[in-house]
């Protein structure tokens, strides 16, 4: 199994061609002819990271508005045209980006380009559509608040980040979503949705030259758009542990331990990726062995290092068994992190983690949309000019593979000690709020009919 070979490209990145149009639009193309399918995406480098105080949730709200029609396409037309061609479409927004995708049979995929080329500048912001969609987003937000982990995550991120916009959840704070106006939304769109700030990604059964020609035809004549304002906010160094307790009606406690960790493609980041595998990938991992097997204190637990444009968090989450206390599980996790930092890592364990990283690369890249998503995400977030060519943008995926494979025990332990320490962490506990006697209920009027 040799996903990385001497030319420095992995199967995921080999044959990817990057084309940049004069107006700044980036195009990534990768021909894959195993199935008569094309995944077509467009990525905008804008997410909740770019939102001002009091205006959270705008990036995500804008994503919803992008399906509400353009000057040419009426409301519902984008979905309808996708449907009748047997395609699928959707979109997602996160801290650093907003991405839209279509998957089509390969004889009709170019419709995706036509739609994206239209809505990049011509999205209609009909006030009545805006208000109606606001209700949908409020429902989405409330749905999230019914998930205990989502509530805990919101509080931990908001506590860990005082100044940086990673403070706020991508869906936004409820009051901000309620208050945003259609004019503010249109301004935001006009600032960010331009070729200069976008990447088109195509993976699948097409001919590269013809596909690039078609993208050029659709987007090439557009102005580059304004230079986007740099995001200058830097989270100050944390100097001491922070704690937050969330109360919610629940039968089991939950726990999150989060450490400030470096931005994507930072040279310290690779060791932390291997640490995350050692801690929680599979049943042989350390947290599984400790919490599920030895202590039997949780129903599940995992470590996650989610990389972003700016420094973000390396975190561990656990759902406790009934009757177990967050403090006890917290102590066990901290002990495991301490052990990782100070006791030698057996060679076989390190080799296993590296092999898992390599295998995940092949096993996880069967479908076109997955591949397009990975290429688009890293092209969008790992774009710092100071990175070398073979580590910047989608090539970060090769750097990740190469550099994680080269990690030694001492490098991993040095980084665990540097980042996963007490002064750098925020700990959140979600505990039960017993509201049995004071629970507010809305009279239903027909309780007698209840079966």
């Amino acid at each position, binding site marked *: 199994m040799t996903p990385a070979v001497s030319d420095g490209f992995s199967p995921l990145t080999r044959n990817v061609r990057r084309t940049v149009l004069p107006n700044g639009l980036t195009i990534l193309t990768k021909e894959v002819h195993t199935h008569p399918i094309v995944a077509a995406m467009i990525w905008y480098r804008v997410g909740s990271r770019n939102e001002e105080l009091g205006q959270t949730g705008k990036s995500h709200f804008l994503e919803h508005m992008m399906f509400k029609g353009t000057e040419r396409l009426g409301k519902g037309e984008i979905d309808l045209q996708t449907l009748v061609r047997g395609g699928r479409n959707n979109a997602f927004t996160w801290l650093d980006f907003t991405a839209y995708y279509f998957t089509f049979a390969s004889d009709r995929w170019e419709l995706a380009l036509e739609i994206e080329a239209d809505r990049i500048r011509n999205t209609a912001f009909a006030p009545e559509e805006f208000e109606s969609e606001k209700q949908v987003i409020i429902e989405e937000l409330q749905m999230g608040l019914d998930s205990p982990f989502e509530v805990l995550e919101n509080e931990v991120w908001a506590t860990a980040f005082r100044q940086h916009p990673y403070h706020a959840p991508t869906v936004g704070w409820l009051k901000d979503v309620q208050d945003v106006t259609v004019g503010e939304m249109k301004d935001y769109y006009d600032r960010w949705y331009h070729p200069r700030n976008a990447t088109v990604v195509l993976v699948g059964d097409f001919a590269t030259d013809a596909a690039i020609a078609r993208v050029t035809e659709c987007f090439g004549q557009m102005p580059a758009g304004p230079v986007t304002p740099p995001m200058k906010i830097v989270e100050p160094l944390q100097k001491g542990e922070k704690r937050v307790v969330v109360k919610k009606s629940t039968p089991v406690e939950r726990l999150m331990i989060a450490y400030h960790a470096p931005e994507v493609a930072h040279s310290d980041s690779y060791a932390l990726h291997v640490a995350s595998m050692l801690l929680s990938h599979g049943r042989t991992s350390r947290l599984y062995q400790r919490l599920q*097997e030895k202590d039997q204190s949780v129903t599940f637990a995992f470590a996650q290092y989610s990389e972003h444009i700016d420094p973000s968090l390396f975190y561990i989450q656990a759902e406790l068994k009934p009757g177990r206390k967050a403090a006890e599980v917290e102590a066990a996790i901290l002990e495991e992190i301490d052990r990782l930092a100070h006791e030698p890592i057996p060679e076989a364990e390190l080799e296993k983690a590296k092999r898992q990283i390599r295998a995940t690369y092949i096993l996880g890249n069967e479908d076109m949309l997955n591949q397009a998503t990975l290429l688009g995400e890293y092209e969008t977030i790992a774009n710092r000019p100071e990175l070398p060519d073979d580590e910047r943008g989608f090539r970060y995926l090769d750097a990740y593979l190469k550099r994680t494979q080269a990690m030694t025990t001492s490098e991993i332990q040095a980084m665990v000690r540097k980042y996963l320490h007490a002064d750098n962490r925020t700990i959140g506990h979600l505990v039960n709020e017993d509201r049995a006697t004071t629970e507010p209920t809305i009279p239903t009027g027909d309780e007698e009919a209840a079966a």
Partner: protein
Amino acid sequence: MSNETNHLNAGTQRSATGKKGVPTRVELSNGIRLILFENPALPMISMNVMVGFGGRYEAEEQAGLAALLGDMLDEGTERQNSDEIALAIESVGARLGTFGGYTHSGVSMVALTDDFPAILGIASDVLQRSTFPADRFAQRQARTLAQLTSRKDDPRTVAGDAYRDLIYGTTHPAHRPGIGYPKTVAALTRDDLFAAYRKFFIPNNIVIAVVGDFVTAKMVELVEQTFSTWQPAPDFVLPAVPEVERQREPREKLISKDKEQLQIYVGHLGIRRTNPDYYPLLVMDTILGSSPGMTSRIPRILRDEQGLAYTTYASITATAGMDPGRFTAYIGTSPGNREKALNGLKAEIFRIIEEPVESAELEMAQAYLTGSFVFNFETNAQMAAFLLEAEIFNLGFDYLERYPDLIRQVTVADIARVAQTYLDATNLTTVMVGPISSKD
């Protein structure tokens, strides 16, 4: 690594029926049904094994048996303990999962081509020689009991449980949650697991699908060799399950939970997968509430036009299986929208029964279903799942070719007929969970 391993995908040999794009079906001498499909695109192989055992066959007082058995399959065998099994799989970066579902239990795995024979060996061991070690059993049982508590936090799960319970009544096994109940799970013993394992885990109750980077003849040989000593039980027949009928009266249950949203399920008993009207109903689902985006009626009207929900849908075919599934319309909405949402769902059910669909709607649904069919086979695991479905429901492997016509044949009159036959807008089960007061 043994010699066969390197030869699985070597050479250009193709079995008679194993040419590219055509599945091969083989019945092994001990009764295992094996379906193979070559896909050399990536150096990997997926395998799904389905054993004809699940919650469908457990007694009411043993609810949760199949789920716990499925969970315990890889917890130790005569050859390896649970740590050794996990390490063997994870050290090569493969994936192997075991499960116990409603109609079937089994193993699903994916491995790089070179690692496949070793992982197949583990799958074979798990299917034939699990020992359900006592300490592992106690631990898994305790974890299941903990999960039974934590799942009460998910209002959709609570609503789904209550909904199935009302639809299937007390005598049909589909009324139970697959995970069981605290009382029944606590009462399960290792002996219960052994009894079910010995009875149902036999070669003539098993179907295997293998998809990926191999040559069919060599894979048949390898699987045959791996399972050669496993003896069939010639007298085995699957136990019968009671019939269930669609309700003739409305049923309702309200459950109070301290949550932001109200979860609403509305519907009644549905159809089997083998129902000849499955295809017109699939087209009806696409028009009523199951197409992507906001194109079908319920998401378009209740979400896109009225802003009542983020998630809302309806379908009768999604749960069609060996037993009748459920016709379900769902919405998650703020408690203040309750009447509007409920009436909206019911109005659309009523309308599709009473009024013929427009021919443009029909054509769009047909174009979608035929045009998107290709996406069901993009990954090896998807292909394996399809081959098993085709085998279990006797669809025939030429189903791939016949499917577009099955969809294109459906007429406006067919949709009216099936809507009137299989939907009932009056006698509905309604379950609501959330910030609402409950009274039984």
